[in-house]
């Protein structure tokens, strides 16, 4: 198992490095003079020259990259347009988005997983059709429209929940959850649809496997057969899918945070793009890519832990 993990780690590092290069080049490719973007609003040549030398913009590209990468690894992502530390801003915002993601996963899993199990067990029956159709609807609904509709209904017309904004958990847990509820439902809906389909497909495979037939022939009650034998083998695939869905979750968070005015990581990205704040954008996209790579790696590790075939290597008799 060690070799397997090392290889995955190596691949992850490669991806990370290439991503950082892409981010770096991408930002350089944006229209406009980087010097202007990096802070020199006026066109005074002296100021421009000063900015250039400060940021080393006259050095060849590879040197610039290494300089930037070196700083990044040490946690220094520079300062944005408003002279605030990029790294600090990101660190402030990430927990908020993580909370949103966490709640969404909770909602998505609580709805999607049991639905998938039931749909697989009652394949072809009304429960299956209902669940499958529901999942299809959940996949097709544009989540930002759902968000707008929910705001209109629950916040504007019924006044049950706040229309947007954010209250830190440490300040007021109840208010925090109130603000997070609708956005989490919006994101969780799409996730539950994906999880349901994945669980159903995986369980259908498990339920028709020979070892399930053996379990029944052993006289075990149905509940044990389904929840112990079949489910165990499906959990592996479903967990990996869940991990991979985090990327889509972050994508969704970008819009959701915009609509519900939540000061999270996603919103930061949009702001950075709109304000043409390239240093900030660089840092943000790099962190996003790094986060994704880490998640993928964790998923791979978990897969090898859960799958006995990889955890314990085969020893032929």
């Amino acid at each position: 198992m060690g070799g397997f993990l090392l290889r995955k780690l190596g691949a992850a590092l490669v991806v990370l490095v290439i991503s950082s290069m892409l981010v770096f080049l991408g930002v350089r490719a944006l229209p406009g003079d980087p010097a202007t973007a990096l802070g020199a609003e006026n066109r005074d040549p002296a100021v421009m020259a000063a900015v250039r030398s400060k940021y080393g913009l006259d050095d060849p590209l590879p040197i610039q990259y290494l300089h930037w990468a070196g700083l990044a690894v040490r946690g220094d992502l520079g300062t944005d347009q408003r002279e605030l530390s990029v790294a600090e801003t990101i660190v402030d915002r990430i927990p908020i988005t993580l909370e949103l993601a966490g709640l969404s996963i909770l909602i998505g899993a609580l709805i999607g997983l049991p639905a998938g199990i039931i749909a697989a067990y009652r394949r072809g029956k009304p429960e299956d059709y209902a669940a499958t159709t529901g999942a299809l609807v959940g996949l097709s609904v544009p989540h930002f429209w759902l968000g707008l509709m929910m705001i209109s209904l629950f916040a504007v017309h019924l006044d049950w929940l706040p229309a947007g904004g954010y209250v830190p958990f440490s300040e007021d847990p109840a208010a925090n959850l109130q603000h997070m509820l609708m956005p989490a439902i919006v994101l969780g809906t799409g996730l539950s649809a994906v999880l349901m389909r994945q669980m159903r497909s995986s369980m259908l495979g498990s339920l028709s496997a020979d070892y399930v037939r053996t379990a029944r022939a052993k006289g075990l009650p149905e509940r044990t057969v389904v929840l112990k034998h079949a489910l165990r083998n499906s959990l592996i695939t479903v967990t990996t899918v869940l991990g991979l869905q985090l990327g889509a979750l972050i994508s969704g968070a970008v819009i959701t945070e915009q609509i519900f005015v939540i000061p999270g990581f996603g919103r930061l990205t949009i702001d950075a793009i709109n304000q043409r704040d390239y240093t900030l954008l660089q840092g943000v996209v790099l962190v996003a890519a790094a986060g994704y790579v880490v998640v993928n790696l964790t998923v791979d590790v978990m897969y090898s832990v859960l799958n006995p075939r990889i955890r314990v290597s085969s020893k032929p008799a």
Partner: protein
Amino acid sequence: MRFETDDGTVQAVDALSFTLDEHEVLAVVGESGCGKSVSLMSLLRLLPPSAHVSGRAQFDGHDLLTAPASRVRRVRGREIAFVFQEPMTSLNPSFRVGRQIAEVLRRHLGLTRRAAERRAVELLELVRIPAPDRRVNEYPHQLSGGMRQRVMIAMALACDPKVLVADEPTTALDVTIQAGILDLMRDIRERLGTSIVLITHNLGVVADIADRVLVMYAGRKVEEAPVKDLFRGPQHPYTVGLMGAIPRPGGADHQGRLREIPGRVPSLVGPWEACAFAERCPRADEKTRSEVPPLREVERGHTVACFHPGPE
């Protein structure tokens, strides 16, 4: 027993009936797809919902086909145990082998986890797996095919069942391992006195350990006899053909070739109006092509479904 499929109703098994005595080894013989596995599995209601089973299965004073599900579950694994054909896929890959055996013991005999695990090791020893206390904690993918099959047998014998149904237990294994498994089954019969239903298409195995033989073709029973009678004097042309196809040193015909039965098994879709074997039978005539031959007793304990029974 019939299946509903996209192409129509498939009558997989028709009018099959047999009895099994205590301590008896009954071999059910036939080619792939003749309905032998499916008919045995239907007894314990182990078939998918698309299968419709009709008939009766008397065991211990109850009809298993109409008994409540809880009773069937109590019989499964405890009184009638199954050993399936594919040891590779019949064991759950995510659980240790010992735990899978212990599961039956805890469920049916109410043993504690510790007692069940101890008994599991004993059972592994019974089926002659070397180093059982080490093997009991391994996963199925760590064992060879032959050992996995032994584990399946150990799992089946755990509660000392009255009947052991072995569905082609040696087909997925190579010849050298086969002999070991057969030895084991012989051993089980002698030591534990379990009745065994052995499903196989290998007549060599039948000659080795069976007491009585039931030959099936296209879902129907075509011949049944004590093993010696069957080998000495097969009556149904299909059985005769099967015997001729056994590789035997010096036993083939004068050209030195194995005799095959020409043609293929007919499709099982649609109702039957003739002898199922008619197309391939050297004795076929108008009668066999228009009527289904009934089972008739030819000598004591020997029944055949044929209009022209007799040795070749």
